[in-house]
């Protein structure tokens, strides 16, 4: 993985008495105290993280937690008080005015909460905006802008003006404007927050669809956790300018770093995020190449279970054996488990969302087995585990 954006010790303090505020900050005083003593607002405090190329990185937090401030320091719409942002190794805060404009023109596209479309320009002209700034010739401008509008599902609206479109469609234009000049990095500040739920879902799906094709590096700000969990490859959670946790969606749900994050994720719709692998438990397994009926039966007795999973040398699933059948087999004097193995077991891939499984899991009496792409057995899903995961209890792996 290539590092695309690297944020180091990034700090922003708003106000006049920056030195005092900085000193208090280094003494570990919090945002409220610093505001009371100096009148300065801590926007972001010592943020450190890296975003990889092709990653959809979501920044979450309540209003005022510093999300917009961080994203605006990435393209330096706001200068940092301390620390720097590196984009492809280039230190953003050190760039000259000219270099900064070049960086913004060539690499970064931004999408805004209230769309920020230019009302005096047509949809097509809006989409062409970035290219026009770069003085690309007009036929290329039109071609690329139309491609971008196509991509967001807006062909045929070229000559309309933004105020003739619905909010959802306006934001499609906003997205097309950012995509048209081939930006490698998309900055999306609450891009979908102003939309109705239905439009919002549509736009989320659209973004995922586009991302699958284009593999941009996307920094997406939101305050809806479900949205973050749906979109994010990784999620950063902020509070009062501080980073509370960075991790993959499942990691955040299953291992919240602290009480704050735990409270933050309360009430979230887990079924959409949790996958089979996060709710599965370890299966009791024997290797058919090494063990016969007697070993199998002893293992079941030792562990107080009534059936056991059987794999081959490569840990590929072969079947499962019932304790009754195995003891019958022993009475008959057979040494080969194969004759009693059951193979009609419900099976699922490790990265299947439990949302897709939940109905079937509640209907089948025997546990699902979880395998990877090569059919290697990963674990099994017990019904209770699913319910526990949805209700937010820790899943014991």
């Amino acid at each position, binding site marked *: 993985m290539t590092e695309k954006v690297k944020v180091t010790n990034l700090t922003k303090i708003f106000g006049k008495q920056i030195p005092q505020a900085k000193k208090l900050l280094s003494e570990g005083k919090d945002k409220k105290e610093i505001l009371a003593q100096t009148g300065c607002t801590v926007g972001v405090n010592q943020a450190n993280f890296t975003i990889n190329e092709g990653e959809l990185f979501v920044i979450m937090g309540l209003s005022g937690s510093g999300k917009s401030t961080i994203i605006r320091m990435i393209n330096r719409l706001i200068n940092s008080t301390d620390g720097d942002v590196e984009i492809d190794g280039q230190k953003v805060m050190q760039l000259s005015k000219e270099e*900064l*404009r070049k960086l913004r023109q060539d690499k*970064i596209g*931004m999408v805004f909460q209230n769309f*920020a479309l*230019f009302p005096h320009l047509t949809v097509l002209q809006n989409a062409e905006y970035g290219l026009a*700034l770069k003085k690309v010739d007009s036929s290329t401008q039109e071609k690329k802008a139309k491609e971008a509008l196509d991509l967001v599902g807006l062909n045929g609206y070229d000559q309309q003006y933004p105020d003739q479109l619905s909010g959802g469609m306006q934001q499609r234009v906003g997205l097309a404007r950012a995509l048209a*000049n081939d930006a490698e990095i998309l900055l999306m500040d609450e891009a979908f927050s102003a939309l109705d739920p239905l439009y919002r879902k549509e736009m989320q799906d659209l973004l995922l669809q586009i991302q699958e094709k284009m593999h941009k590096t996307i920094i997406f700000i939101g305050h809806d956790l479900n949205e973050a969990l749906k979109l994010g490859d990784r999620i950063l959670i902020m509070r009062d300018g501080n980073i509370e946790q960075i991790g993959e969606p499942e990691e955040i749900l299953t291992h919240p770093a602290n009480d704050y994050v735990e409270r933050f994720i309360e009430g979230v719709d887990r079924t959409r995020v949790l996958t089979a692998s996060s709710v599965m438990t370890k299966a009791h397994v024997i290797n058919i190449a090494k063990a016969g009926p007697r070993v199998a039966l002893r293992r079941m007795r030792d562990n107080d279970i009534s059936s056991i999973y059987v794999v081959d040398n490569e840990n590929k699933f072969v079947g499962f054996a019932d304790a009754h059948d195995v003891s019958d087999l022993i009475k008959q004097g057979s040494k080969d488990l194969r004759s009693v193995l059951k193979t009609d077991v419900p099976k699922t891939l490790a990265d299947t969302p439990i949302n897709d499984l939940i109905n079937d899991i509640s209907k089948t009496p025997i546990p699902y087995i979880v395998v990877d792409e090569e059919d290697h057995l990963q674990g099994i899903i017990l019904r209770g585990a699913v319910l526990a995961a949805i209700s937010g209890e820790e899943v014991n792996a």
Partner: protein
Amino acid sequence: MGSIGALPLADWVNSGVDWLSQFTGFFNSITAFFQAIIDAIQWVFDLLPEWLFIIVILAFTYWIKRDQKKLGFMIFEALGLLLIWNLGFWRDMTQTLTLVLSSSLIAIVIGIPLGIWMAKSSKAEVVIKPILDFMQTLPAFVYLIPAVAFFGIGMVPGVLASVIFAMPPTVRMTNLGIRQVPEDLIEAADSFGSTSWQKLIGLQLPMAKNTIMSGVNQTMMLGLSMVVIASMIGALGLGTQVYFAVGRNDAGAGFAAGIAVVIVAIILDRITQSFNKTSH
């Protein structure tokens, strides 16, 4: 106050004016420059026969108000201009137009850049704002005297006096219009890497267009309100007719010339207003 003595403000101004008078050559060339503009506009008006002028105005109105209601106004224009022609004020009317248009043109050429500068620099705003107030509130007669001293008698000092009095709205409204462009649009333009020139031409001026046009409209109306005063220093036109009628104590003639001024005012007002009604 008496114990301190009056400040010799008048003396200071007089010596300033005296000092400036040594640059006669400079003022003469300015006069010649403005006279050329005025002559060019007047030349066009004199070229057109009355009927053709009326048709041109009607056609222009038709075009500028192409997506608005216009019939009633066009009838008013035709009748109003015919009345002026009939009353024998035609040439005075064109001279008044020349005065208003050339002073507005100068006010726009100076005022819009000044307004832009104010919008871009808060320091400039702090300095320019009181100067604008000063220009608008200082009684016109006060600067008519030095205007005559530097630019002689005639259209030029009249135009310049009108510029001083009429320019502030254009400057103010340009400043206001640009400052009113929403912050998020500015941010969007910045985020895509536009230069400040690209921002100005591609975003701020187009977005401020309507506000600026209403400033220009006010400038024209104020310019028109100066015609009588300007006539006192030799600017020809309807103002001269009013001024003479007042001198002869001839209420009827004064009223007739006054009506002609009102007709011109309404036509100019409606036409410039329709500039800012065109959508997008």
